[in-house]
């Protein structure tokens, strides 16, 4: 097998439980985003665009959609001979099987996979961030600094430092201390969850970590602090562009809304750094004679007869006459009837919203984003208050069951 200088390991096993019903049957990296993409499209496209063609994707939670979505990576131009994308679920070996216990353990269990390629460096990525980044420049930085570990960091507002892993650095970007979610931060450089390691050094650290029964086997909590303690050369690679952790409903919604600016920080239209995705074959969208579409992204297969403002429409969405969609994300194949009003909501795939419904009803003191899980049917004239999450488990409470009838037993 050809020698590969850098290979990437993409952590895609997380449940993303703070995304609630959106990740009930879906791993977080598979959550739809931006009218066309899934979150994992961003790190995968970054790899292809950075010239890193060997990517192991570590999966564990509800991987079916993710596995069939990734396939052999051809959609991201990653289907190369002697390279490409490999999905790596936990497995049983000669001495039994173990689930992935933490991020570091997941890589540990796949040491043989990495060894096949005999890489100099390994790039560890997480599958739940939205950003465009040239990893090859980070690897160059890592080489130039002769680092053992390089961690990509981004400046966050001081008031949010308690939500991140914060790096305390010296002048030359060398990291002297790593504080996980500090109450009183000394710095505002947060880890982006993008690491470059010397493979041989990481390999040893992972083997040691595996033997440490007190460890949670996590990169941020265990492996990197230990390497710092041992005096390894750990550097911070400052990143100045758009980066967003979409771990909550609110941040997922916000990241979508960030795209509708006239000149958004994250430019999806850049020809030299395309974000690849699996493309559905749908006809061009139709904007009706009485329709109005402003400050929005609309995908193929949509038919818009109503008004769409500051919203994102995935493929195959129908918006009926007189309906108003505002500040919302509407996922694939949602059918919206006439004279509906939807505000500050995320509507899941294949939902039906019948005539004269009000979703995310404003002005009633409720706040937050309203979420409809997939396949929910809001029948005529239903009102859904702001901030609720409706799926197949609780839809009967709101009278939003498929076909108008709900059999509680169907739930599980």
């Amino acid at each position: 097998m050809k020698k590969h200088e850098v290979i990437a390991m993409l952590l895609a096993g997380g449940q993303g439980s703070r995304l609630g019903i959106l990740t009930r049957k879906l791993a977080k990296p598979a959550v739809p985003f931006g009218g066309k993409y899934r979150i994992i499209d961003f790190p995968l496209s970054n790899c292809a665009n950075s010239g890193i063609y060997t990517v192991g994707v570590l999966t564990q939670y509800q991987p079916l959609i993710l596995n069939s979505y990734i396939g052999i990576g051809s959609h991201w131009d990653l289907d190369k001979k002697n390279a490409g994308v490999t999905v790596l679920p936990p497995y049983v070996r000669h001495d039994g099987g173990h689930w992935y216990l933490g991020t570091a353990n997941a890589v540990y269990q796949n040491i043989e996979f990495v060894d096949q390629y005999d890489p100099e460096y390994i790039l560890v990525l997480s599958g739940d961030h939205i950003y465009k980044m040239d990893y090859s420049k980070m690897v160059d930085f890592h080489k130039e600094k002769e680092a053992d570990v390089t961690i990509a960091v981004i400046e966050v507002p001081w008031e949010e430092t308690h939500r991140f892993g914060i790096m305390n650095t010296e002048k030359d970007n060398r990291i002297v201390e790593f504080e996980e979610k500090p109450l009183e931060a000394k710095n505002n450089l947060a880890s982006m969850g993008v690491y470059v390691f010397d493979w041989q050094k990481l390999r040893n650290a992972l083997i040691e970590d595996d033997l440490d029964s007190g460890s949670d086997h996590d990169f941020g909590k265990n492996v990197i602090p230990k390497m710092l303690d041992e005096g390894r050369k750990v550097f911070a690679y400052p990143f100045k562009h758009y980066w967003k952790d979409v771990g909550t409903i609110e941040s997922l919604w916000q990241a979508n809304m960030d795209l509708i600016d006239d000149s958004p920080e994250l430019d999806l239209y850049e020809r030299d750094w395309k974000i690849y995705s699996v493309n559905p074959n749908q006809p061009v969208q139709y904007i009706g004679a009485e329709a109005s579409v402003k400050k929005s992204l609309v995908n193929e297969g949509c038919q818009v007869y109503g008004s769409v403002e500051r919203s994102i429409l995935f493929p195959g969405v129908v918006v009926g006459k007189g309906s108003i969609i505002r500040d919302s994300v509407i996922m694939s194949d949602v059918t919206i009837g006439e004279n509906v009003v939807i505000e500050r909501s995320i509507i899941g795939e294949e939902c039906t919203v019948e005539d004269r419904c009000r979703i995310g009803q404003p002005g009633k003191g409720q706040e937050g984003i309203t979420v409809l899980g997939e396949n929910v049917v809001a029948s005529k004239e239903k009102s859904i208050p702001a901030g609720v999450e409706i799926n197949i488990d609780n839809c009967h409470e709101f009278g939003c069951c498929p076909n108008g009838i709900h059999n509680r037993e169907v739930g599980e």
Partner: protein
Amino acid sequence: MKNVVGIINDTDIKQKLKDLTRARSTAAVPFGGRYRIIDFVLSNMANSGIKNIGILTQSNNRSLLDHVDSGKEWDLLSKRDGLFILPPIFRYDQFTGNLGDVDHYYNHMDYLNRSRQEYILISNSNIIYNMDYREIETFYHKKRADVVMVYKNVSETYKTNHRVLSLLLDNNERVRDMADARDKALSPAAALEIAFMKKNLFMQLIDDCIARGYRDFTKDGLIKNLDRCKIFAYEHKGHAAKIDSIKTYFRHSMDLLKPEVWKDVFLSHGNISTKVKDEPPAKYQESAQVSNSLMANGCHIAGTVENSLLSRGVVIHAGAVVRNSIVMQKGQIHEGAVVENAILDKDVVITSGKQIIGDAEYPMVVEKQAVI
């Protein structure tokens, strides 16, 4: 329809498509915002379950090759069957003038011979419609026909002054006469230039033509055999549009703006597939004013667009106006420019303040890569 081999004939150069076919074959002319004309018949075949499809091409077939590639988008990757490009077979030193369609078919007899299918569906490349060809097969067996053609009743729509192959049918839907003429239609039944028959019969008809020096499959192979072969005609009730001139190209493009046509063509039987491009969704800015238009992905709209079709990656700057027009891939319309009743080929740039205004019956065509 696993037992059917599909043949798409793209050897006829439609001179009336003018600049649109200067650097590409008819099949490869962009249509409907993200398609090429061949996508319709090719998708119909694939959606009907035909697994072995040959495309008879012209020599100048680069756009077409790029577009269909290995046939993957139509799910035609296959170890035994699949998509085959059948280029013209002749050597420069043996070349003696124009070839008729019969010669092209004859030159690829070995392909037909080798294919395992028993039936053949041949079609021209230039009809826009969505049809389940299994209906033809059923009709063929019901009528115990030798040949089934497909027609569209054109009485209710406009007349064209192009040549039309009209069919005279008896009460049993058998074809009694057929004529390829201008203005002198035998009936409102206009053939869609599709024929379904046993492969052996087709090969025999071609052989007979070759033996007699005949060149035209329709006139020589079918019309001269109206008595010997039981030719029946099946009516296609959905939308169907033949593209053979700038005028029909423009008119049929505009027809897609009618939601009932859009739905019939794109959603009625199966998806129309095409080569996939990685374009983000269309983006509308605050100042966008769009009505009654079809927009492809990758468009960026800040100006006004009415009754128009925009292909992938078109940019309409704030203050620009596009009306009753077709803007192909990556067109750019700058501030203050006005485009009306026009067809802009790929990569056209209309700079600030310029006006391109054609007539609804005689749209202006701007050639590829022009900067105005």
